[in-house]
């Protein structure tokens, strides 16, 4: 595949492209699936608004995929520096609202990144520990108390007599407030 030149980076910060040995084919049917530095990858094209994202091509199976596939940057429009800052804030224990305020993004964006990053972190942990050769020597086990809001059970539906229902609806319309359900 002919190699095209990158015109300009997505943001003006120092964003260097990783060497191709850091990537592997994500196609599970490929013979070189998940094999790094196998020499099967080449750059197919530059894509994105600023032509800063590489699309890679696997010579073995012919799959084309974005270099961001499987990473936190996949499908995001935020610059890399912002994503790193969000993850750092969350890692240091800032709340979602604090992180959103610091990074000047929406709280839903932070929650989405937390979910993505948490799952990826778990996968990375499992993957690395599979390669652990040294046996565990000593383990300590303990509990830590934490609190989450319990989900409310489905509330019972109360049958209201027709007369009362009419009266309530009239009142609501008249005074412009919603009365609590009896």
């Amino acid at each position, binding site marked *: 595949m002919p190699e095209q030149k990158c015109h300009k980076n997505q943001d003006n910060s120092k964003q260097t492209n990783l060497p191709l040995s850091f990537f592997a084919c994500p196609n599970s049917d490929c013979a070189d699936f998940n094999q790094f530095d196998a020499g099967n990858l080449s750059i197919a094209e530059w894509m994105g608004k600023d032509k800063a994202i590489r699309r890679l091509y696997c010579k073995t199976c012919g799959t084309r995929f974005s270099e961001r596939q499987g990473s936190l940057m996949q499908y995001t429009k935020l610059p890399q520096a912002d994503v790193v800052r969000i993850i750092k804030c969350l890692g240091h224990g800032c709340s979602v609202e*604090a992180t959103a305020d610091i990074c000047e993004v929406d709280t839903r964006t932070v929650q989405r990144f937390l979910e993505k990053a948490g799952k990826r972190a778990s996968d*990375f942990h499992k993957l690395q520990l599979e390669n652990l050769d040294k046996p565990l020597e000593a383990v300590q086990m303990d509990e830590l108390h934490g609190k989450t*809001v319990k989900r409310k059970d489905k509330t019972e539906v109360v049958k209201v007599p027709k007369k009362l229902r009419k009266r309530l609806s009239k009142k609501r319309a008249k005074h412009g407030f919603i009365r609590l359900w009896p």
Partner: protein
Amino acid sequence: MKSRFLLESIIGARTLQNAMQLTASVAVYSKDKDPPLILIDDHLPYPQAILQIFGGIKHCRRKNGRGRLKYPRLKPPADMQVGVVKKLRDDRGYLLKVSSKALFGKKKQIEKRIQKLGIGRKINTSHIERLNGTIRGQQARLIRRTRSGSHLEEMLQYSIWLWRDLYNWTRVHYSLLDETPAMALDPRF
């Protein structure tokens, strides 16, 4: 050599099922080698969970030749060593006394092994307790009397997974001679 590596964190009630899940993760990462030295507190489900995961079946023999045979029981492996830290508290919850005992294995042998590994002199859970303090200090969701607690268990789980990886793989530790816990666990990391 201590590594301070956080292996697994499970969110849920303090039940036998969760204790078994936690113990199973230890068994998975020990990879069919000798079971590691396990130090626990006096949480009731732990002994049963350890027996369920690591133990084998013990068939009882008939002693006299009369009567019903006893049901098969679970027994720990011969080289299994488990130490328990017991905390005695008064009615108000204040700590009165800390004692320790060996659940499986001999207490002296466990203490010798602890000294050899350099994680203390007696049976203790001080490293995990210190880690609990660290996570409480660094995660807003777990601070005591906080208003920024999690509404959903999943979000708490994600934040702990993220924190665990940053703690294990990126943060250097003073007591580990400026190495990360992962580097201390296995130099290849």
